[in-house]
């Protein structure tokens, strides 16, 4: 029976590892390969503090968690600047460094022989010396980790992580600080792995570098892929399957070494087969959860007109003499653009004229080589894209950049500013306030969707929308930021006349409220219908500025533009 309990204890430990690794891999979409290193740091911190310094169990555990969390955040630093494959190699390097240190810093870590004699845990006066008694604790801790990770995953913070995974630029454009998100995701994941490491140390009473090799990371990865990336229950199930299944190898009379090798080979084969035939895993990510009825009931009609700026025609966002060079290519060559409240400004010009570049310069996605961006005459203090949204300036993208593997409602919900649950400590310390606000936001999101005509699509996945609906959702997401200045990059192109008739009044109405609107558009009929003033861009600067009719009467422009 002890054997079965032992297997179950290992299932619990691996479930903790798989669930926590899934935060980085599945939710944040950051591909790191250093999970076994964090597992090791947790285990060794416990081992060193309890055996060499006589630190009691609990403070040792806390030290392990904090230390691993900090190292996890440091490991994420390179990921802040560049993602993808570079993160893979950096985290792989971290994994190797940690194992090297464990092997080589003999005085501290015992070298290749490891550390033995780690004290067993006692709970309610009873020493947990048998697998059966330890199982109770391991299961309780695994359940606890599952619970807090679940809270994270289904909180506004978790939603922001998934938005970042789906599209980092779009997440920034609605005010998410992706740097902070990455650091916290890494730290949280690493700290949870440290809990598993600490448990392992007390359970086996011995730690050695062999238990934390890169193969362990790949094994945990296999558990996630098998169970379902982004699905916490799947990760736990994957852990159970991949710990229990290879035990069958023990039924065959194989030499111990060979059995281990075959087990690892089996993990590899399984990874390949799963990715080939069921890449979403046994339990695909569950994001199409039901909307609470209370939110549906609370949703009324969007009170667009409640938001009104008294002053019209006042200069809000302005760019002065903006220059941008990419190597030898001049993308902006002295753009001067003043946007005014209550006015729809159209931006026209041939392809490559610098229209999108102008948007990028105004919203902090590009830093100008020279020139100034100001809001109501004041220079923008913090020009990082996610901060610029807080200055009430929001932009959309020509290539839409919706959060595809999220619901239509979530796309809007994520964009609301100042959500309590954007901060992880609120998620844990003020769960009810976060939940109440989130439900209120859901009702508001429904109102926004209703306003653009997508309410009946709310619970569907954003990648099921038609092109016209996607464009409407882009506008809805932009509206949710509650920004005063809205920069829309080709919001109308490719729309059929029916949808156009639906969208144009929305744009006009937003302007009538006093918002500042600027849109890039190619269709001159549309420009004439919706824009109050038009700027003609070519060669990286504004060549003409005026009422649409005036511009279109200018024969030189007409010739340049229409040909």
């Amino acid at each position, binding site marked *: 029976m002890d054997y079965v309990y032992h297997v179950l204890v290992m299932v619990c430990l691996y479930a903790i590892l798989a669930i926590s690794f899934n935060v980085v891999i599945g939710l944040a*979409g950051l*591909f790191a390969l250093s999970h076994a290193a964090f597992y090791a740091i947790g285990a060794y911190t416990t081992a060193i503090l309890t055996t060499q310094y006589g630190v009691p169990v609990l403070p040792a555990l806390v030290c392990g968690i904090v230390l691993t969390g900090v190292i996890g955040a440091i490991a994420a*630093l*390179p990921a802040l*600047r*560049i993602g*993808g*494959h*570079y993160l*893979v*190699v*950096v985290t*792989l*390097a*971290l994994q*190797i*460094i940690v194992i*090297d*240190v464990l*092997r*080589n810093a003999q005085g501290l870590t015992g070298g290749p022989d490891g550390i033995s004699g780690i004290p067993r845990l006692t709970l309610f006066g009873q020493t947990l010396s048998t697998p059966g008694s330890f199982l109770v604790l391991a299961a309780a801790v695994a359940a606890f980790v599952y619970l807090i990770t679940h809270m994270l995953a289904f909180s506004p913070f978790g939603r922001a992580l998934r938005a970042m995974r789906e599209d980092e630029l779009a997440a920034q454009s609605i005010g998410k600080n992706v740097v902070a998100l990455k650091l916290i995701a890494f730290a949280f994941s690493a700290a949870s792995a440290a809990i598993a490491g600490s448990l392992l140390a007390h359970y086996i009473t011995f730690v050695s570098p062999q238990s934390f090799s*890169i*193969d362990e990371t*790949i094994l945990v*990865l*296999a558990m996630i*892929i098998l169970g379902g990336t982004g699905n916490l229950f799947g990760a736990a199930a994957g852990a159970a399957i991949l710990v229990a299944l290879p035990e069958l190898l023990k039924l065959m009379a194989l030499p111990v*070494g*060979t059995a281990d*090798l*075959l087990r*690892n*080979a089996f*993990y*590899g*084969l*399984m*990874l*390949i087969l799963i*990715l*080939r035939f069921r*890449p979403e895993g046994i339990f695909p990510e569950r994001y199409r959860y039901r909307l609470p009825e209370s939110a549906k009931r609370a949703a009324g009609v969007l009170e667009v007109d409640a938001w009104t700026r008294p002053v019209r025609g006042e200069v809000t966002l302005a760019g002065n003499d903006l220059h941008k060079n990419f190597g030898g290519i001049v993308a902006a060559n002295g753009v001067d653009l003043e946007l005014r409240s209550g006015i729809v400004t159209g931006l026209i010009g041939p392809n490559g004229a610098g229209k999108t570049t102008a948007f990028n310069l105004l919203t902090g996605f590009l830093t100008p080589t020279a020139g100034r961006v100001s809001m109501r005459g004041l220079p923008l203090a913090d020009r990082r894209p996610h901060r610029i949204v807080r200055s009430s300036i929001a932009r959309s993208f020509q290539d839409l950049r919706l959060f595809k593997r999220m619901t239509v409602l979530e796309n809007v919900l994520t964009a609301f500013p100042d959500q309590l649950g954007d901060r992880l400590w609120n998620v844990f310390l003020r769960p009810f306030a976060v939940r109440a606000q989130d439900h209120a936001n859901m009702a508001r999101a429904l109102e926004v969707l209703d306003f653009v005509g997508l309410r009946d699509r709310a619970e569907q996945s954003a990648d099921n929308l038609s092109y016209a609906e996607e464009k409407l959702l882009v506008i809805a997401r932009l509206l949710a930021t509650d920004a005063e200045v809205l920069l829309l990059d080709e919001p109308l192109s490719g729309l059929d006349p029916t949808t156009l008739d639906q969208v144009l009044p929305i744009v006009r109405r937003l302007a009538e409220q006093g918002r500042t609107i600027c849109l890039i558009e190619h269709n001159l009929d549309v420009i004439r219908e919706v824009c109050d003033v038009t700027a003609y861009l070519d060669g990286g600067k504004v060549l003409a500025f005026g009422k649409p009719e005036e511009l279109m009467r200018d024969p030189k422009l007409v010739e340049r533009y229409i040909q």
Partner: protein
Amino acid sequence: MDLILQLLANGVSNGSQYALLGIGFGLIFGTTGIVHFAYGPVLAASAYVMWWLAASLGLPFPVALVLGVAFAGIAGVVAYLVLYEPLLARGSPSFVVLVASLGLFILVSNMMAVLFGTDAKTLSDISYGIYVLGDVVITGVQLVQIAVFVIIAVGLAIFLRTSAWGNAIRAVTDNVAMARIIGIDTRKVAIVVFALGSMISAIGAANILVRDGASTHIGFFAVFYAFISVVVGGVGSVWGAAIGGLLLGLVESAGMWKLPTEWQSTIAFMVLFVVMLWRPTGLLRGN
């Protein structure tokens, strides 16, 4: 001073080996965007093949080398056609391809350990000279490592610059979509780079076989150093990988001046970490 010269010599020779591995890996990674982790096991398998042909069948080493290189080329192409291509054809994200390559990596590595055992397989009848220049001692293998790297790097650079295939490979490296539009068969280009890259890895495998013998873990360190060389130097050019590899070898060697040898790889990875923070797209260029 003598120590410094000795460390320099060691650094250049180790760096040449890393650079050689980096060129092969970088050719595949830069062109196809696939992080081919199974590059390591393919390299290890070709070392075993050479060992088996030379030690068990008694073939002369040059013959074993040629056959081993051919084996690696075929194995690389098979990995592409059987594993990566179906995934790419389905439009899988790069994350999926990367995990699949990790799966192939541990599948092949462990199966090799089952088949060949975990002890090192060495060639007993290969001997190489040891040369003393002043106070610097350098072995024949070290000299061969440097020479082989220079020959292959220059040869590959000329091939990429002058041949039709080379032009196609450079076009795909630069912009896949555009290459496709102008009628380049990207599938064939992928097959060619997998073959070439894997064959280059087999030459690195021969160096390792002669120097230390073949064992199952050589694959991991090979692909890992290759990956780091490419990332440190900059993806997408032969010279990037070459500079990255040489720098890695030199810095590691310089570290030996003050630190014991077991910290060698830790030093290399710290270099990587610093370069990534300071110049995330690599020293030479990056796309």
